[in-house]
């Protein structure tokens, strides 16, 4: 079985994002980028399935600018076998693709790669849209199990049992493969790339395909126009400074006085 993992290049999780002077974009000049943390967990999960002998190949794919090569290399250094960059300048031209456009592109990658399992992060920490994975599953006509905290692929490779973290608790579902899952935080802790892993990554195949020239996508009808645009960013309204109290008794008195209890 082949596993396809999608990754997104996102600003580092600890980076403080600043709004650019135009108010419409973000100042990313000094911001380091990394693999979206949830996607890194997805890469790790795919590697574990392969190491358990239930998959032969882990392919990572991203849709983005040339610089996203760095994140593909990071995934290859972790142990993925092969990488695909569907390159587009749309992001750089300030016209980022919307979720459905990216989902359609990834559905075309599925069409050409024919994986048995697709693993994606449950959300991207930059735009927090929580959208693309279910869209991809729908476009592929596949079952999905989102927010997985446990994945067990059956020995015959035909089914997978997934535990999902949902609002009410933990849900268990069984999927007949091919299927798509999205990873939650508790499914694993991603490994660090080893030095030999980083050296090897540079020799692993990394295919760059222009979005405009990606055959399977045009056969599926292309991606159309972007219909979702960020028109401006705003800082959070300032929060009034709170007060420090000296004791639990004082705290109780204030809560009571403000009629909060």
């Amino acid at each position, binding site marked *: 079985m082949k596993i396809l993992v999608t990754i997104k290049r996102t600003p580092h999780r600890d980076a403080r994002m600043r709004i650019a002077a135009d108010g419409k974009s973000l100042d990313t000049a000094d911001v380091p980028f990394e693999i979206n943390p949830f996607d890194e967990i997805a890469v790790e999960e795919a590697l574990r399935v392969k190491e358990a002998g239930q998959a032969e190949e882990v392919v990572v794919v991203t849709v983005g600018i040339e610089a996203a090569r760095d994140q593909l290399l990071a995934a290859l250094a972790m142990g993925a076998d092969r990488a695909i960059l569907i390159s587009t300048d749309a992001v750089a031209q300030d016209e980022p693709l919307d979720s459905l456009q990216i989902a359609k592109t990834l559905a075309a990658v599925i069409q050409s790669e024919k994986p048995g399992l697709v693993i994606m992060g449950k959300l991207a920490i930059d735009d927090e849209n929580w959208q693309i994975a279910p869209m991809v599953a729908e476009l592929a006509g596949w079952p999905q199990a989102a927010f997985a905290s446990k994945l067990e692929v059956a020995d015959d490779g035909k089914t997978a*049992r997934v535990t999902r973290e949902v609002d009410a608790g933990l849900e268990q579902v069984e*999927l*007949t493969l091919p299927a798509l899952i999205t990873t939650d*935080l508790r499914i694993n802790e991603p490994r660090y790339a080893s030095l030999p892993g980083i050296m090897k990554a540079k020799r692993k195949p990394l295919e760059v395909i222009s979005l405009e020239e990606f055959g399977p996508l045009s056969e599926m009808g292309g991606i159309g126009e972007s219909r*979702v645009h*960020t028109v401006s*960013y705003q800082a959070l309204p300032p929060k009034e400074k709170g007060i*420090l109290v000296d004791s639990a008794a004082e705290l109780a*008195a204030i809560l009571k006085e403000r009629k*909060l209890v």
Partner: protein
Amino acid sequence: MTTQDVLVIVGPTASTLRKIDTAAIGFGKRAAALLSGEFDLLLLGPLAAEAAPQFIPFGVRKIYTLDHADLADYTAEAYTGAVVHFAKEKNYRFLSCTATSASRDFFPRVAARMDIPMASDVLEIDQMNGDQAQLIRAVFVGNLLATVSISGPQVLATCRASKFEASTEGITSKSPIEAIELASALACADKKFISITEQASDRPDLTEAEVIVSGGRGTRGTEGFQILEQLADQLDAAIGCTRAVVDSGWMPNEMQVGQTGKNVAPKLYFAVAISGAIQHLAGMRSSKTVVAINKDPEAPIFEIADLGLVADMFEAVPQLVKALHAEN
């Protein structure tokens, strides 16, 4: 031809009217007001018909209920099929629901099947007309707000439950209820629901509670949560926690407040022995009053707290329980 009408979807429907339901109605009303359109409700699942009368006082144009054997256990595939079956010929301008673990699972599938652009976790609708909608969302772990413009005749959107409310005040019209029949299969043959583990609790749900008592790593587990439960008992509060607490196995995942857990905005939020990582703040910063108790005066939680107490929770919380008890 698209109408200027709004459809709000509730699913799976519960037997009681929840905060997530009234938020969905409030969100739909806001959209309908901007569009000068009408507003319908679609209740999905085995409890839809039973729950429907509770939605009558909100004065929507019509309440539709849709139940089907394949909706008995929740799956994204079947719920997607039900929504699309109902909505595909109706040309609603705006289709919406509250962001929950279910809608985050099935609503993007609806968007893909119907080829309609989508906005998630909307905090406010800025403006809306025939082919343009401007919606405000939180991005970057709640540290920034983004105004997003969506073009086209139809939009799908989910809202944050903490940001919308609906009232029944002054509404005299009574919404008719219609049950939708659906014969064709909805379930995906390649997915089987097996079980759901829910922990029974006498406490209010996190997303329903007016008061929440949350604990972090500094609770040291059961020892600290036993103390927090005394405070929660006194205030009829829900118990919440941080990611670290769930990761340590001290509390189940459904108690987690934060970016990847629940988003809450109670009247009163106690953050006890919680340092205040941005991922936690993202889930509770809209709370009306935040009380922080932490022995580290440098803890970031104090930056967003309305009331702060620098103290060891193992001393301060029992004292607080006593003081509240004495004064009540």
